[in-house]
């Protein structure tokens, strides 16, 4: 009898000790931890956001104008001339490429978050941008590789989420057909809720080759219903620009029309 009580107690103790391990994912304890809920201030950013204003009158005098260096102005002029000549410009104009960090600003996005990261899902390009909330510094330069969304780390200063991004792909368009020029391009953002349904993002982009001073812009987003709108190149033509010579075959064709 004593023996069975002893073994029962031993069994209970064993079960009590092992229960957390059994409940945890099958991995080395302490190495990977399931994310918890996001900080309250970050949870407020969760949801779908669409652009309602591209600039807000504020203390900055630049009003969002691109402070392009002479080299970039010349490049823009060349692109403009090509564009006027109906030449399809390289990059995203010719094919479906990821939208990248600046495309997210332009077309809105969806945000999900947990304790580890806030995930910004690009509005029109297939760009997933995690903003790491617990990282204190960026990946060392020798390990950092360029991506369209870059590497973003964020921290809260009160209710403002300050995001710092580096490692942006040189092909990432900062604006129409103009891409970043410096692999050391650096973007700092301030995210804050003006109210429950209005998100303001102020951003400063530094790229010595592209900008003669940091480029500052402000975007105002409105909360929108959740929809499934995040894939990009569903058009069978797999092109961005209009291709009138590639009609779908399963279309309505009226009598007398060429097939």
């Amino acid at each position, binding site marked *: 009898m004593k023996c069975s009580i002893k073994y029962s107690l031993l069994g209970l103790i064993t079960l009590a000790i092992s229960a957390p391990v059994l409940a945890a994912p099958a991995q080395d304890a302490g190495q990977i931890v399931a994310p918890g809920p996001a900080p309250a201030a970050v949870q407020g950013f969760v949801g779908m956001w*669409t*652009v309602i*204003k*591209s*600039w807000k009158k504020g203390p900055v005098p630049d009003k*969002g*104008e*691109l402070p392009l260096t002479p080299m970039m102005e010349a490049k*823009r*002029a060349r*692109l*403009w001339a090509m*564009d*006027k000549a*109906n030449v*399809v*410009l390289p990059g*995203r*104009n010719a094919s*479906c490429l990821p939208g990248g960090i*600046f*495309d997210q*600003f*332009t*077309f*809105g996005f969806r945000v999900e978050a947990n304790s580890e990261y806030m995930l910004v899902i690009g*509005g*029109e390009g297939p760009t997933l941008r995690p903003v790491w909330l617990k990282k204190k510094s960026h990946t060392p330069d020798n390990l950092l590789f360029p991506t369209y969304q870059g590497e973003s780390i964020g921290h809260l200063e009160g209710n403002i989420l300050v995001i710092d991004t580096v490692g942006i792909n040189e092909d990432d*368009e*900062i*604006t*129409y*057909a*103009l891409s970043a020029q410096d692999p050391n391009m650096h973007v700092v953002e301030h995210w804050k809720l003006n109210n429950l349904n209005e998100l303001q993002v102020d*951003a400063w982009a530094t790229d010595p080759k592209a900008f003669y001073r940091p480029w500052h*812009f402000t*975007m105002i987003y409105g909360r929108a219903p959740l*929809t499934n*709108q995040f*894939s*990009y*190149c*569903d*058009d*069978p033509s797999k092109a*961005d*620009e*209009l*291709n*009138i010579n590639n*009609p*779908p075959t*399963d*279309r*309505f*064709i*009226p009598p*007398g*029309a*060429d097939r």
Partner: protein
Amino acid sequence: MFKLGPRHLAALGVVALAPAAAHHSYVMFNQNVTTNVDAVVSTWQFTNPHGKLWIYIYDASGKPQLWALEAPGPAQLLQHGWDKYTVKPGEKMKISFHPLRNGSHGGSLVEIILPDGRQFDTGASPGGSGNGGRGGFGTSANPAGK
């Protein structure tokens, strides 16, 4: 000669300061010209990165000619009340679009009027927030200057 009107200036004021521009230019479309036609829908592609409306327009001899009209992507179209079934193949309707400058059978879709009188705007007209907005986003930052 096209002149900027108050509506266009207002549009510039709204879109000139965005951080990034659209995927592609809208210089290929003559946004100073709006073509209004009666058409028959061939098919409607409610897809990213652009919706595309294929229509037949009857020429002077009565022969149906196929045209392709580019629209904003679903994210923008949803905001203007469009969905996958807004238009149906074989349906007749009135359509407005900005034609391609090169004279090919294509354009930028502006608006449709269904037989029951319902109107759907894409925002592609100057000052709009849809197609034109995409082309116009980042006016100051856009080599196309739109």
